[in-house]
């Protein structure tokens, strides 16, 4: 069994501990020896996405020092994994273990489908679900074919969830439009960000989704904030919270 370093992004650690626990439980139940190195904090994405490389770079270096030793690194976030895989190169190029780290850091769904190759999922989730295909996981990790691409369709999140009994994954009018979170964008461009979010929620609602499910808690936090302010009935859930209740084999 490969050693797995569990990477729990800072905001998940602080604000959504249940998502971290769910991820840990899924991996341990699959028999992995999972370690959570406690010195970890953040991948540096907030700073890097604001163009502040000087502030982000030390975090990338720390990340390599902390996680470089594991066979695999797994995180319940598409966005943070994309940071490691696609945006560390210009700082860490040529450093020992960097290429290994870059190529072996996985978002949970791609890990389960592509590396663990889970084929059987036994569980119930009798709800209408709308998938929020967060952008970095979608277009930088290619967790699914994006609606712009004219290639054969696939969707790793749907592949996992669709096996659950009773689940109905609804069809959205805009299958992968951005929710408008975008990190600092959410406050820098507050007006457009919130309008984008409300439009997403409306699309999910129109399709009858009771639960909006995604793999990035940051986007879901934004949608949830809008939902609760408007006192709407929908809920948001991280895909790990759903899979945690099922048997994976």
């Amino acid at each position, binding site marked *: 069994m490969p050693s797995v370093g569990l990477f729990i992004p800072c905001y998940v650690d602080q604000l959504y501990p249940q998502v971290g626990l769910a991820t840990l439980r899924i991996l341990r139940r699959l028999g992995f020896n999972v370690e959570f190195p406690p010195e970890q*904090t953040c991948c540096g994405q*907030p*700073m890097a996405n604001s*163009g502040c490389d000087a502030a982000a770079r030390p975090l990338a270096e720390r990340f390599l020092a902390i996680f470089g030793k594991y066979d695999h690194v797994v995180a319940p976030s598409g966005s943070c994994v994309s940071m490691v895989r696609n945006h560390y190169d210009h700082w860490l190029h040529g450093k020992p273990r960097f290429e290994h780290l870059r190529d072996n850091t996985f978002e949970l769904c791609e890990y389960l489908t592509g590396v663990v190759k889970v084929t059987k999922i036994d569980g119930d989730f009798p709800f209408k679900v709308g998938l929020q295909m967060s952008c970095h996981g979608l*277009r930088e990790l290619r967790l699914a074919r994006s609606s*712009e691409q004219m290639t054969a369709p696939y969707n790793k999140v749907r592949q996992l969830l669709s096996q659950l009994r009773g689940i109905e994954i609804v069809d959205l009018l805009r299958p992968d439009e951005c929710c408008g979170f975008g990190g600092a964008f959410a406050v*820098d461009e507050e007006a457009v*960000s919130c309008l984008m979010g409300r439009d997403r929620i409306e699309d999910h609602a129109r399709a009858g989704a009771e639960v909006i499910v995604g793999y990035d808690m940051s986007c879901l936090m934004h949608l949830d*904030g809008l939902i609760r302010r408007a006192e709407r009935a929908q809920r948001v859930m991280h895909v790990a919270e759903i899979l945690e209740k099922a048997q994976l084999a």
Partner: protein
Amino acid sequence: MTGHAEKAAAFAANESRTHWHDESLWFVRVKRDRQAASIPEWEALREAASAIKTHTLSRLADYLEEFERNATANGIHVHWARDAAEHNAIVHQILASHNVTRLVKSKSMLTEECHLNPYLEARGIEVTDTDLGERIVQLRKEPPSHIVLPAIHLKKEDIGELFHIELGTEKGASDPKYLTEAARGHLRSKFMEAQAGLTGVNFAVAETGGVVVCTNEGNADMGTSLPPLHIACMGMEKLIPRAEDLAVFLRLLARSGTGQPVTTYTSHFNGPLPGGEMHVVIVDNGRSRILGQPTFRSSLGCIRCGACMNTCPVYRRSGGYSYGYIVPGPIGSILAPQRDPEKYASLPFASSLCGSCTDVCPVKIDLHQQLLAFRKKLVDLKVVPLQKRLGMAGLGFVLSRPWLYRMSGSLLRAVMPVLPRGLVYGAWNRWGVQRELPAMPKESFRDLIGKELS
């Protein structure tokens, strides 16, 4: 100085109109999807287009000279303009030497970039934009709000009112067919009176020395076949090596931009009319500076299809004018700060970096990566607000120290729930204007993991 966010907020404040704008453009995106899906080799075409552009840009000087040689042999006068001022002076000089006082123009983003119209008008030349959308915004004394759909921000009622005032159509008329007919009649007389026609250029072919112009209204043909003098203005990046390369680009352009299989007219100009004159003005205006920057070089491959605007969730909800630059949307947000980093500093941040533009772009420009790269450049140039730079440096400081990160997190989670709501959702809290903050859990994941593992 107001940046994109303020102008976007003003646009989005009218929510029903913003939704109308968003839906109009999304409709074009859906048409694009349908057309792209009808071509089995779509992704291969994009790949080919990208490769041709990369190659051409890698030896642009050679291709420009080849073009000049072949165009000259075809009897075309070729002019070189270093910047907008030179471009305008050249065009004016050509017109003045032919005593032209009435010019018809088909769509050209380059002449918008160079502010040619006011330059010529100040020198006594009447300029009529003959593309319907362009004519509409010209009559409104506005710039285009989109590079392919210049009047996309206007409803048919707005146009009815404009035409009532400007062209004497019936008051309250909003039937697109009636309004288009009125505009046609009006433009026809302009075509008849014109002494010269000016067009943009979609593609200049080095091998043939000819230029290709794509329109839906045939106005480029009208404007160049009636008057004997044709001036074509092009950015120096419009070059492609061979005529057969058109087979790649023409299949991509209209499908990507408007969701049509091809533009209604694809006009090839390979020389002057019998007895007429044809001039091509090749403009740099900052392009060679972009060529010298590997990270941003591929932005010169843009074929101005407009697809990145149509797909951009921010553009659709903020409108073309929120960018304050002649080319809006994702591509404009990279090109504008090349021109003036300080003035356009907010544009690379006017994106959630969703990457839809990158996936839709027919020449595979990595638009969202360039937006990100430009943020870094702007931080290095210190034109990003100090507050933001300090905030990010502070955040980086905390996050590099596990004990400080832990303490800050615990403090936040302990304090937020006990603060009065009025304080938590005070004016400082931009997040909370329309959104609730997440519920603060008592314990973090790292507080809980010990229990979990024991």
